[in-house]
């Protein structure tokens, strides 16, 4: 642990994220009394053959920083963590999702109750959940055993039963796990870590049954009663075991761990920490996303409930083919404003999977990746909604008025009209050449509704700041506020449907210079109004009776609107957003929208238009 005195003396900070595809190094410096971001360096991750040592990738990324700022940060031992005028960093910390991140199998008694709580706990700790086993999951026992046997998880989390309840069902689950004998993914001949977080009365029989076969850890019950879910202890145990067992078997991590005093954190855990910080500081509901190469991580904070999901096979490089498989090629192509056959796009996406570190060189290639990103995010949110819901098994008092609302809650409590803030991070979003691109990708994928502010990680450093915040909150927050969080702007999107060309919305904006800006939009239109970062405008939004901007159909809304690097975008395309079936009409609509937001260079859009 770093003491307070030493924290005060910290001037230079180096942080890395060892991603599945790229290792990203970020360098921060204290100037005067405040900490600021200085520079980045990036290099391919070297967890794989022939390197099989993550520290090589870290060295390469850090070397770029050295070269760019002329400061020595590396020596033969690793990172120089004693700084002087021209060398070293006072603090080094890192997150990691390389080598497939943390992969877990979870089990519980009832699929929609304790098994779901176990899944939430594992996802909350930043893990990828490979399978969820439950007594009632619809599979026969031998099928479950077969499924467990074929998995090679990093660890297993078992929940089940309320405290004091029957233990026979949770013992059935333990029997399944024991007889299947899952083997750890990394390392040979060591005991697989198993965490038991179920009925406390089952601890002894669980220990008798599993103690010899697995490395067993007991933590508080995830569901001590049906009405409660306590995942904190399980999450802490997962993090500890991640460090002790998983990381120590991943190539080069033992070396990397020696370079830093701060425990290595899984990337989604770092990202999630910062998402919570934003929600706390803005005192609002929030939906955040980390769109990575292998995974898509979704974070929601709704009425103070924090849920994190990691969609293991949705991503922009390693997992790009799986996005195509899950979404269907037609759903990807529907976002392209130009003609390209399904076959060509399919081949290009498999080629990207095969060469995951390549980047688009042409605008056509960039647009294809943006189309895939929309689908990855859409599917990620779909997955997130299956877990962002009220606890099942809770007995509630029913009233007629509440009945309808309660049913909706059981499906998911994510209602885009109640999400006023969206935050995006990850390589594709942070590196999008134009900020309007990430703005529209997030809007289209999540189909935001009402009045929503959109933020973006400037150069992808949220995981870095997340792990930094565990030891130096002040530095983390200062850098985050000033250099990380880019305010893209505000989107105004009423819910409802109409005929193409019908007038549906009028907005009157009192601009910061005292002028008034009034716009009337027809159904299907998208319009951008420039309002810079830090600027605010007073808005009166009037909608027709078929549309809802947050206060019910036809009701007007007066509110303050925040500007950003993209500005204010009025989205009159309707919700849910339906793309025209007709190929020619759809392309022409996409072109109109892309032009409205200056999404790609004009010359490119004109060329596409002429096709």
């Amino acid at each position, binding site marked *: 642990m770093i003491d307070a005195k030493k924290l005060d003396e910290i001037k230079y900070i180096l942080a890395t994220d060892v991603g599945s595809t790229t290792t990203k190094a970020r360098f921060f410096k204290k100037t005067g009394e405040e900490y600021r971001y200085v520079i980045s360096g990036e290099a391919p991750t070297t967890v794989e053959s022939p390197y099989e040592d993550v520290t090589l*990738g870290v060295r390469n990324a850090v070397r770029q920083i050295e070269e760019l700022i002329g400061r020595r940060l590396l020596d033969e031992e690793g990172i120089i963590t004693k700084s002087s005028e021209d060398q070293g960093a006072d603090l080094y910390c890192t997150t990691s999702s390389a080598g497939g991140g943390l992969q877990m199998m979870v089990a519980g008694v009832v699929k929609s109750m304790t098994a779901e709580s176990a899944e939430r706990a594992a996802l909350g700790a930043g893990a990828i959940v490979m399978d969820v086993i439950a007594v009632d999951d619809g599979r026969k026992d031998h099928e479950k*055993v077969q499924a467990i046997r074929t998995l090679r998880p990093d660890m297993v989390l078992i929940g089940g039963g309320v405290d004091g309840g029957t233990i026979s069902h949770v013992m059935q689950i333990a029997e399944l796990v*024991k007889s299947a004998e899952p083997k750890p993914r990394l390392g040979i*001949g060591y005991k697989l870590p198993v965490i038991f977080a179920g009925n406390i009365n089952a601890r002894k029989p669980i220990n008798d049954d599993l103690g010899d076969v697995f490395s067993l850890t007991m933590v508080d019950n995830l569901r001590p009663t049906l009405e409660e879910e306590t995942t904190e202890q399980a999450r802490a145990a997962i993090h500890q075991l991640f460090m002790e067992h998983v990381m120590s078997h991943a190539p080069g991590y033992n070396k990397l761990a020696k370079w830093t005093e701060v425990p290595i954190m899984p990337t989604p855990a770092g990202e999630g920490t910062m998402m919570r910080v934003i929600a706390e500081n803005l005192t609002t509901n929030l939906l955040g996303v980390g769109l990575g190469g292998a995974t898509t991580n979704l974070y929601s904070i709704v009425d103070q409930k924090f849920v994190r999901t990691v969609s293991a096979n949705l991503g922009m490089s390693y997992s790009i083919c799986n996005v195509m498989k899950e979404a269907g090629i037609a759903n990807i192509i529907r976002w392209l404003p130009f003609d390209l056959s399904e076959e060509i796009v399919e081949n*290009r996406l498999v080629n990207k999977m095969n*060469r995951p570190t*390549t*980047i688009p*060189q042409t605008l056509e*290639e960039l647009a294809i990746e943006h189309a895939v990103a929309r689908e990855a995010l859409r599917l990620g949110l779909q997955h997130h909604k299956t877990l962002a819901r009220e606890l099942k098994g809770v007995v509630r008092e029913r009233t007629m008025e509440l009945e309808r609302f309660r049913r909706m809650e059981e499906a998911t409590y994510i209602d885009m009209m109640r999400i006023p803030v969206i935050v995006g991070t990850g390589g594709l979003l942070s590196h999008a050449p134009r900020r309007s691109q990430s703005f529209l990708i997030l809007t289209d994928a999540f189909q935001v509704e009402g009045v929503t502010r959109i933020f973006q990680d400037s150069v992808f450093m949220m995981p870095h700041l997340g792990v930094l915040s565990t030891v130096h909150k002040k530095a983390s927050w200062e850098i985050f506020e000033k250099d990380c969080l880019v305010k893209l702007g505000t989107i105004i999107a009423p819910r409802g449907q109409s005929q193409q060309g019908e007038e549906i919305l009028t907005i009157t904006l009192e601009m910061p210079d005292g002028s008034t800006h009034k716009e009337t939009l027809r159904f299907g239109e998208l319009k951008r109004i420039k309002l810079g970062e830090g600027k605010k405008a007073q808005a009166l939004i009037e909608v027709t009776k078929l549309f809802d901007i947050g206060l019910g159909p036809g009701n007007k809304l007066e509110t303050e609107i925040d500007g950003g690097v993209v500005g204010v975008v009025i989205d009159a395309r309707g919700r849910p957003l339906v793309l025209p079936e007709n190929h020619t009409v759809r392309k022409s609509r996409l072109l109109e929208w892309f032009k409205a937001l200056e999404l790609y260079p004009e010359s490119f859009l004109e060329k596409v238009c002429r096709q």
Partner: protein
Amino acid sequence: MKVKAEVAHAYTPGLKVQMTATVRKTRRLSTFGDVLVKEGDTVDFGTIVARTYLPGEPHLLRAAHLLGLEDDPKAVARYMSKKVGDSVEAGETFAECSLLFGLVRKSCASPVRGYIESLSENSGYIVIREPKAVVEVKSYVPGKVTEVLPREGVVVELNAALIQGIFGIGGETNGALRMAVNSPNETLDAGEIADQDNGKIIVAGSMVTGKAMAKAAKLGVRGIVSGGVNYRELVNFVGHRIGVGITGDEQVGFTLIVTEGFGRMNMAKRVFSLLKRFEGYNAAISGATQIRAGVLRPEIIVPHKELPSEEVITRDSVGGMSPGTVVRVIREPYFGAMGTIAGLPAELQKIETESRVLIAEVELESGEKVLVPRANVEIIEE
């Protein structure tokens, strides 16, 4: 801020295309077992080098439920005619219980041949384990055992040509190489495959068609090596969509190795000519691909003794890119083009997408000089 003229090492992943190399293959069990050969032994393609016994499939029986003892799972043991550790035959009744003064008889029979592994007093479950399954690891390549990894396997060393592909389907196999086309830009269609290709590894040019794959499987071809393949045709042939890049377990009749990428892709000339050079030789191939942690690429290993072995490429020499390095462009708009590095400007440059990236100046085989993001070239290790 000071910007130095030098750039960091470009650690670009490369695929090996080596005429002569000392290839070392580690042959390892997935769990501890017995190593059957010793250091210095000579092994062939099919020599078994290590063996282990994996626990057989477990079968869970809800014994308490079957015996009507749900409320008292501890009582199950009393009604068993065999104890934990005893062997049982398929269909053999090993526990019986009579209820209601003998009016109702309930019993528990083993679904398989095996042994009673455990009985849980808490859940009333019984686990019947099938007999152990033998798992053997073959040498895969002919050569000399240079190292024994105690209880795990061996390292086999040989002199061979080594070509890595980009994507494969199917596992390890071997067979004689046959060039089924005359140039690297020709398509392999069903007409080019004949009965005598049974047991062989056949080489295509820019593409192998779906019909050719179907015929090859039917005629018992062991492997196909091709520059490209159409994703859709491959999916139709394999029978499922490929989502995650982890392959090798497919049972489609032969092993497919794609050397360049998906779509019509002329096979790299040096790959084609190397395969041609060794036509008729027995080769070991594996389609196993893992585009994830511990990346694994499909490979073609052609053992030969004709030339002295070159120095083995070590990790340190992998990935360094400098003017003159032979590269392949691996992204549109020049996908598949081969060339040499003409320059590596240190400054970031704006490309068509408006991104500012490190670029490489590449002189293509056609003589044309093009600018390509450095991330979009791969080194051809020679």
